[in-house]
C-alpha cells in the first residue's frame, strides 16, 4: 500500500485518500516514456516550463529531468511584483536541486504596461487601473504563457503543461494561460496523486507541505478561495468522473449533496476549457470533425 511521508512532527505530510493512491513507480515509467515520445514525435529534445515554486510545476520539472536529463530542461521563473518571495525561493531551491537550466523574467512591466500602475494609465486606459483580480490574474497567466512560448523558440524546447486533473475538471485554470502547452504529463492526476508522486520523486518537502496557491495576490490559497479541501474534492471527482457514480450514490456514500451539486456545476460550466474550440462545419472535411489525424505523423516532426 502507498505510504505517505511524515513531517517533522510525525504527522502525515499530506492526506492521501485510499482510493486515489497510485503505483508511483508505474506512473513515473509511463510519464517518462510519454515525455520522450512527445518530444521524439515532434522532433525536439528539450523542454521549457513555467516554474512557480508550487507543487504542480515542481513535479513536472522533476519528471522532465528524470525523462530527458536536467540539462535539457529550461525552468522559467516569472514572478510579478506582488508574487510571494517564498514562491520564488522554492522555485530557486528546485532549480538548484535539479541542476536544470533556468531564467528569471519579471513580468511586472508587461502586466503593468497594460493595466497601468498607481495612477499612471496603461495600454488599457484609465479604467483598467481598477481592474479586478480576475482580470489581473488572467493576464498574468497569459503573459507567462507568452513568455514560455517565446523561450520555447530561444531554447528550442517544447512547452510542458503543469495543470492537474482536479483544477482542469473544475475549471480552476486560465484558458490559453496556465493551461496552454504542447503536452501535459500530469493532467490525468488528481491533486492528491500529484502530492503522492511529488513525494516519491523527491520534490522538496516544503513545496509539498505548503498550501496550494495560484499566487495571483498575497496570501491567496486555492482551498481558502474555493472553500474546499483537495482530498475531499478529489474523492468527489474520482467517484463521479472515473467511477461513474451518480449524485444519489455519492450522497449515499456520505458526501454532502450541496457540495456534489456544486462540483457538478463547476465541471459543466468549464467543459469548454477542456476542448478545442468548435469550427463551423461548411466544407466536406473539417479539422476535428471528419478530418482526423494524429497530431504528429510522418513529416510533421521539426527537421
Amino acid at each position: 500500500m502507498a505510504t505517505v511521508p511524515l513531517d517533522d512532527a510525525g504527522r502525515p505530510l499530506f492526506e492521501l485518500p485510499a482510493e486515489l493512491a497510485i503505483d508511483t513507480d508505474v506512473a513515473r515509467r509511463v510519464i517518462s516514456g510519454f515525455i520522450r515520445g512527445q518530444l521524439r514525435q515532434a522532433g525536439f529534445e528539450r523542454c521549457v516550463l513555467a516554474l512557480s515554486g508550487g507543487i504542480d510545476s515542481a513535479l513536472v520539472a522533476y519528471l522532465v529531468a528524470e525523462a530527458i536529463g536536467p540539462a535539457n530542461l529550461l525552468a522559467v521563473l516569472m514572478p510579478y511584483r506582488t508574487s510571494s518571495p517564498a514562491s520564488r525561493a522554492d522555485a530557486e531551491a528546485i532549480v538548484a536541486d535539479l541542476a536544470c537550466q533556468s531564467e528569471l523574467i519579471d513580468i511586472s512591466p508587461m502586466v503593468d504596461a497594460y493595466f497601468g500602475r498607481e495612477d499612471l494609465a496603461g495600454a488599457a486606459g484609465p479604467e483598467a487601473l481598477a481592474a479586478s483580480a480576475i482580470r489581473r490574474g488572467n493576464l498574468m497567466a497569459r503573459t507567462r504563457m507568452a513568455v514560455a512560448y517565446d523561450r520555447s523558440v530561444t531554447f528550442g524546447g517544447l512547452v510542458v503543461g503543469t495543470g492537474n486533473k482536479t483544477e482542469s475538471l473544475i475549471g480552476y485554470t486560465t484558458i490559453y494561460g496556465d493551461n496552454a502547452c504542447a503536452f501535459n504529463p500530469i493532467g490525468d492526476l488528481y491533486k492528491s496523486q500529484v502530492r503522492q508522486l511529488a513525494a516519491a520523486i523527491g520534490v522538496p518537502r516544503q513545496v509539498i507541505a505548503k498550501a496550494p496557491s495560484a499566487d495571483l495576490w498575497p496570501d491567496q490559497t486555492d482551498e481558502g478561495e474555493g472553500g474546499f479541501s483537495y482530498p475531499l474534492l478529489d474523492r468527489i471527482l474520482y467517484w463521479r468522473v472515473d467511477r461513474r457514480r451518480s449524485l444519489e450514490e455519492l450522497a449515499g456514500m456520505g458526501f454532502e449533496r450541496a457540495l456534489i451539486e456544486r462540483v457538478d456545476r463547476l465541471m459543466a460550466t468549464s467543459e469548454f476549457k477542456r476542448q478545442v474550440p468548435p469550427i463551423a462545419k461548411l466544407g466536406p472535411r473539417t479539422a476535428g470533425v471528419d478530418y482526423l489525424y494524429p497530431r504528429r505523423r510522418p513529416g510533421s516532426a521539426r527537421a
Partner: protein
Amino acid sequence: MQPLRIALAQIGPRLGAFDDNLARHHDLLRDARAAGAGLVVFPELGLTGYLLQDLAAEVAIRLDDPRLAELAAGTDGLSAVVSFVEESADHRLFIAAALLEDGEVRHVHRKLFLPTYGLFDERRFFAAGDVLRAAPSRLGVGVGLSVCEDFWHLAVPQLLALDGAQVLVNISASPGRDLAATNEVGLGTASSWRLLMRTYAQLTTSFVVFCNRVGVDESITFWGGSEVIDPSGRPVFSAPLFEEGLFTVDVALEDLRRERVALPLLRDERLELEARELGRIIAERAGMAADTTAASGAAPGLDVAPPEPYESPAADAPARTAGPVRAAEPIRLRARRR
C-alpha cells in the same frame, strides 16, 4: 522433441511510418532467426502504429503488396505473425494479422471485434472481419490468430481451440491505464489481461502467446508485458512492462499432449449443445421465437423486463432534489479564473 523457441518482438512502432517499421521487422526477423527462434510474433499494427485515424487509408496495403511478399521471403524455415492495415478488393480496411511461413503468407486473420467505446474508436476507421479459422502450421500444431479485443470475447479462444489451434496467438496494442496502487502489477490493464489469458490457456488447454506493443501514440502508452502461458494456465514467461525488446522463451509442445490427456476439457465440449442453444437464443433475440427464458413483461428480443412499471411523477409531488437537502451554510466553492 526439440523445444519451440518463441520470439516476442515487443516493439514500439512509429505511427504512420510504414517503411521504417518494415525495416525494423526485417532486422528483428533476422535477429530472431539468429537466436534460433521457430516462431516470431509482432504486435497489432506493428507495421503502421495504432492510433492512425485518417492515416489508416494511407498506410493500408493489399495482400499482394510486394513489401509483404518481401517480408514473407524472410521466413524460410520460420513462422512469423505480423500485423498491418489490409485493404480488401472492395476497399474495406481491416486490422489484419498474417501468419508468414516458409516464404509465404499462410493465413490472414482480420480483427473481428473493433472496440468503439471508452478511449477506442476503431469501428469508425475499420471494417470488422467475418471469419475465424485456425490455421495449420509448419510448427506441427494448429495456430489460432486473434487481435487484441478479439480476446475479450469468450467464443474466440474456444472456437479457435475447437477448430484445431493448440497455440493461441494474440497480438495487441493495449493502452495501459488505471494505476491504482491496489493492482497486481500497478496497472489495472495488465491485471485484467493476465487473468483472462491464463484462464483461456487453462480452459482451452492450449498455449497462449501474447505480444503487446510498447511506446506512445498521442496520449496513450502501451504497456508491453508480453507473455507465453502453458496449457495448464501457468505463465512460462512474462516480458517486462513498457520495455522494448526481442524476448525469447522455449516451450515444450509435448505439454499440450500431457495437459489434454490429463484434463480432457476439449474432448468433453458439447458442440451440439452450444449450437442448439445458440440457435434458440438467436431466434429469440430476433423476435422469431417465443422467448422461453425471458422475464414476464420483457419485450421481444429482450430477456429482461423493466424493474417496475414506469409512473410519471405527479405534478404536485416534490421534486427529488429540492427541499431539505439545501445546505444550511453556503459552500463557496467556485472557480474564479476564466
